[in-house]
């Protein structure tokens, strides 16, 4: 209100720029199609892109992915790389659900043979992975000492206890463990919330999904990822649960004070931050990394519980199920990465809030089996339509190797509940052959397919822009929601 309309300049068919005005230190760069840009103009997310561009130490552009929407502080779908000497680190640039992410598990099962068992599989998953608001008890309460190990080791903690195999770590971003984590940087409250929630899914947009690989766009990459047409796969979407929420809450308070102390003039309180190398900045990074490790371990434990549940439900052996981790991505995280900026290789602190890392072929951070094809990029859609597996490209350096993370909502939760009135969404999806089980009825209504943009449009923009290209399409057959 009363704010100047931001100029949006078209660069090419898929790229838009917000030119520098006022206190912006870099331009904004938005990836969108004609259809998506009209949605994006409809909320205040472009203003948020411009606000992020005002932060000291930001490098290149304040980026917005095509699934951008209005968040708090940073937009969701925002990417900002910071100079490690002069730049800032901001809990608002990561979000409350630290290392919310997606994991894709392949199986040896063909849909043609197991389609009639999907209902049983969904029931087994629902019974084995605790879900819903405040869900606890995935593997019981872990002791304080064990929790500290989880915070520093990440997914390795679960693997060392027989939940998964060492190979799973090779197929997890950062090997399932972000370096620099310090359990002592986590508050007593955060630790307390975390101790009961290892191996739990939570609520909201988090889910477990049995899907079918419906189409292959890139045979070579699909083969490297172990994906084939007609195959059943499992998607897991969740994060660091109450522990991560508490870490963000705690450190936003710290950063509000820090921002004042360092004399940072920020356009929104929720952008509060501190210099990367300040004491507050270092402590936040150590706590955020610990929460990220908790999340990777959480998805590792959930995968283990889910795989066992499927074996039991189908009465088949581990060998017959043939579960294997394709990849695990983080889409709410800040980390140090090396990128080429103006022809020079340098370390930057990159914030991805609702954005996915997308390393192209030949990148040093990839496991041997993906080295020549690139990093798998997992982009889940809504529970009624489709999800995509993509792969990072050589051109991804343009966005500090970042791409979209999901469909993005078009309807508020309130509007979705209104639209669901008098309807039975579970039944509607059932008629379309999608088995849904949920802890709360409200969740299904708020998360119904119509509440989201079609993820194909979002994925298409990044494919056409050359940042991440399509490998396979997944269609949902069974969904567990919190």
């Amino acid at each position, binding site marked *: 209100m009363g704010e100047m309309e931001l100029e949006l300049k078209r660069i090419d068919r898929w790229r838009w720029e917000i030119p520098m005005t006022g206190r912006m230190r870099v331009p904004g760069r938005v990836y969108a199609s004609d259809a998506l840009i009209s949605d994006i103009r409809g*909320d205040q997310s472009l203003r948020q892109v411009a606000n992020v561009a005002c932060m000291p130490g930001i490098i290149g552009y304040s980026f917005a992915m095509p699934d951008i*929407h*209005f*968040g*708090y*502080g940073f937009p*969701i779908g925002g990417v900002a790389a910071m100079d490690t000497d002069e730049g800032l680190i901001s809990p608002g640039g990561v*979000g*409350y*659900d630290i290392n919310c992410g997606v994991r894709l598990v392949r199986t040896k099962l063909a849909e043609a043979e197991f389609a009639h068992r999907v209902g049983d599989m969904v029931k087994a998953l629902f019974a084995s992975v605790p879900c*819903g*608001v*405040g869900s606890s008890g995935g593997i019981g309460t872990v002791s304080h000492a064990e929790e500290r190990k989880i915070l520093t080791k990440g997914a390795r903690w679960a693997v060392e206890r027989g939940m998964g195999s060492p190979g799973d770590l090779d197929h997890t971003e950062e090997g399932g463990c972000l370096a620099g984590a310090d359990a002592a940087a986590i508050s007593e*409250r955060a630790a*307390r*919330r975390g101790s009961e929630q290892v191996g739990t899914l*939570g*609520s*909201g947009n988090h889910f477990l999904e049995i899907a079918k690989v419906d189409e292959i766009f890139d045979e070579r990459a699909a083969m490297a990822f172990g994906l084939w047409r007609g195959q059943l796969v499992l998607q897991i979407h969740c994060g660091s649960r*109450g522990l991560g*929420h*508490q870490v*963000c*809450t705690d450190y*936003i*308070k710290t950063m*509000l*004070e820090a921002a*004042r102390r360092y004399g940072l003039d920020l356009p*929104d*309180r*929720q952008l*509060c931050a501190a210099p990367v190398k300040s004491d507050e900045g270092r402590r936040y990074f150590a706590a955020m990394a610990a929460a990220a490790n908790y999340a990777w371990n959480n998805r590792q434990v959930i995968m283990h519980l889910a795989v066992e549940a499927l074996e039991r439900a189908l009465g088949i052996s581990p060998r017959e199920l043939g579960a294997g981790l394709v990849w695990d991505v983080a889409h709410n995280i800040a980390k140090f990465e090396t990128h080429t900026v103006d022809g020079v290789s340098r370390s930057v602190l990159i914030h991805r809030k609702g954005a996915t890392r997308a390393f192209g072929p030949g990148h040093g951070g990839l496991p041997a089996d993906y080295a020549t094809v690139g990093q798998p990029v997992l982009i889940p859609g809504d529970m009624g339509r489709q999800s995509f597996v993509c792969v990072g490209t050589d051109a991804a350096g343009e966005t500090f190797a970042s791409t979209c993370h999901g469909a993005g*909502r*078009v*309807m*508020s*939760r*309130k*509007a979705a509940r209104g639209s669901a009135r008098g309807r039975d969404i579970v039944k509607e999806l059932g008629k379309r052959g999608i088995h849904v089980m949920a802890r*709360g009825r*409200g969740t299904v209504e708020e998360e119904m397919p119509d509440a989201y943009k079609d993820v194909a449009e979002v994925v298409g923009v990044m494919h056409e822009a050359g940042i991440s290209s399509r490998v396979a399409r997944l269609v949902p057959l069974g969904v567990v929601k*919190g």
Partner: protein
Amino acid sequence: MKTMKYEEIEHTADLRLKVYGRDERELFANAAFALFDKIVDLSAVEARETDIVEASGADLEETLVGFLGELLYRFEGESRIYREFEIVELVPGGVKAVCNGESFDEARHEVKAEIKAVTYHDVAIERGPSGVSVVITFDV
């Protein structure tokens, strides 16, 4: 005039509530009520136990967000739910409230939504002729 305590306003990704009060104290009490009213079905919650909840902040807005964050922790970390609130002390730097409710009981209480956090996004207490209001954004 009997006014509403709060209303939900449109926000695509998160939960936004506009909270009203005749004065700042009532605003704080109504905001606390709104938080729990979104999380659980309060009709089944009895106001039979009392806790004192305190919070602080650099100004009234930060105190409000801190207060709601403290209450959210009481629910998430200590399984406490409240339905009645009396603000006994309120200065720009701090609040003290008497909160009445009970412990969460899965058998009797229905959880409606998960609220991950209370944000500071654009939070500004507005004063008008008939009272005060504030818009609060919750991460859900």
